[in-house]
């Protein structure tokens, strides 16, 4: 059964159209990679799903029509977002960032703290003074604390040290294997995506140019649309 479905979604920034009829399908428990070069509409797609940008077309999550819902209600259906650029709440402490939108479920402070010990050490520090990587961890922790059914990671490993990046990929893999969480992931590292994602959707200039099993993604296609 599909958890998230986009049909013919278009979106625009003012006069400039950014999405031209995007289709996307994500089943329960599936990990889908959204790929494409810079500026091709990946983040825009994410924004339409989270209702941060008005869109036309059909957006269905878990049988609910997202198009009528405001942003916060879409999130409450179980969409957890780790946005591009982190967007931690600067003036809140680490702990406050984590509990600010927490909803009950398996993920709580302790579990996030175990996942990112660095955050646990800095519970009282203002987010604005965290290092870039720490902020990234915080953004992931914050999304997990909402106990989502669908986790959206938009460049979640940007700016992270290899070791931590590897850890995060391990976490993603574990989330997939152990909790059956559905994940929509955007990342520039094809290698990691290949390991974790079941399927891939590739965007170019706001259109889906390729989609299918990750394994079926051949070198030529990826070179043409992703650059490697």
């Amino acid at each position, binding site marked *: 059964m599909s958890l998230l479905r986009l049909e013919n979604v278009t979106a625009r920034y003012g006069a400039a159209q950014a999405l031209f009829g995007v289709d996307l399908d994500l089943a329960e428990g599936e990990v889908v990679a959204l790929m494409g070069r810079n*500026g*091709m509409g990946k*983040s825009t797609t994410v924004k339409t799903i989270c209702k941060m940008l008005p869109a036309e077309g059909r957006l269905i999550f878990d049988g609910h029509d997202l198009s009528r819902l405001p942003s916060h209600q879409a999130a409450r259906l179980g969409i957890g977002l780790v946005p591009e650029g982190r967007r931690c709440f600067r003036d809140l402490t680490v702990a406050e960032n984590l509990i600010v939108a927490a909803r009950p479920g398996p993920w709580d402070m302790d579990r996030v703290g175990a996942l990112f010990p660095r955050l646990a050490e800095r519970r009282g520090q203002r987010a604005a003074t965290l290092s870039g990587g*720490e902020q990234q*961890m915080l953004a992931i922790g914050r999304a997990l604390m909402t106990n989502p059914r669908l986790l959206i990671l938009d460049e979640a490993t940007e700016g992270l040290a290899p*070791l*931590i990046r590897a850890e995060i990929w391990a976490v993603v893999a574990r989330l997939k294997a152990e909790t059956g969480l559905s994940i929509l992931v955007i990342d520039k590292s094809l290698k990691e995506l290949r390991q974790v994602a079941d399927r891939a959707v590739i965007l170019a200039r706001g259109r889906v140019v390729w989609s299918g099993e990750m394994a079926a993604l051949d070198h030529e296609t990826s070179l043409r649309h*992703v*650059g*490697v």
Partner: protein
Amino acid sequence: MTKPVLEVRGLSKRFGALVVSDGIDLSLRAGEIHAVIGPNGAGKTTLIAEICGGLAPDAGSVHLNGRDVTGLPIRARAKMGLARTFQISALAMEDTVLQNALLGALGAAGRPWRFFRPVLSDRSLRVVAEAALDRVGLSHKAAARTAELSHGERRQLEVAVALTLTPTAFVMDEPMAGLGTEGGARMTALLGTLKHEAPILLVEHDMDAVFALADRISVLAGGRVIASGPPDAIRADAAVREAYLGDEA
């Protein structure tokens, strides 16, 4: 051996109990790329702020072209040829891409106090700005508003602004971050040629780029340089593997 372009000696800084720079020694010589890597929160961005001004170290000194610049403001250091790119893009979002580049050219030319002449008709500035945009591959977006750029494009513009300064040294904080594979490859190529114009102090988490580019690598952890040397040695260093690289390399 030539005198280093940029030299950092015994730099220390603490925030309360947290030591973010712990007696750091570093140098940047002409023609090289010196990569600084290290775990998140190791103090890399802090180090850059101390080098470029904006954050005063508690102890230690920064020398640029042999001059002690430790007490100088950001502006003065920039005038002496230090070009910095930001980890989080700092661009005038309402202005066009070209205007952002022009700002750098203007700073390099050092003539902001002109009240009457339209800046866009200043050929010499335009040439510099357009050339910089061209090198990072943003010429086609010159007339676009910066706010309309995608994340990756903003990273490119960030580097272009630094380029307009025709600096004596670059200090770059994660220029690859957010660039796609292809963009990353282009940036890697660009930096490879740039270093012949001015050496680059490169903070970066993209290990492919670091190992492809760096002539020397210093590893920062807990505010302290735990290893420094040529790429191969660093790759093999057990402490570095444990603190940072993991199985990556």
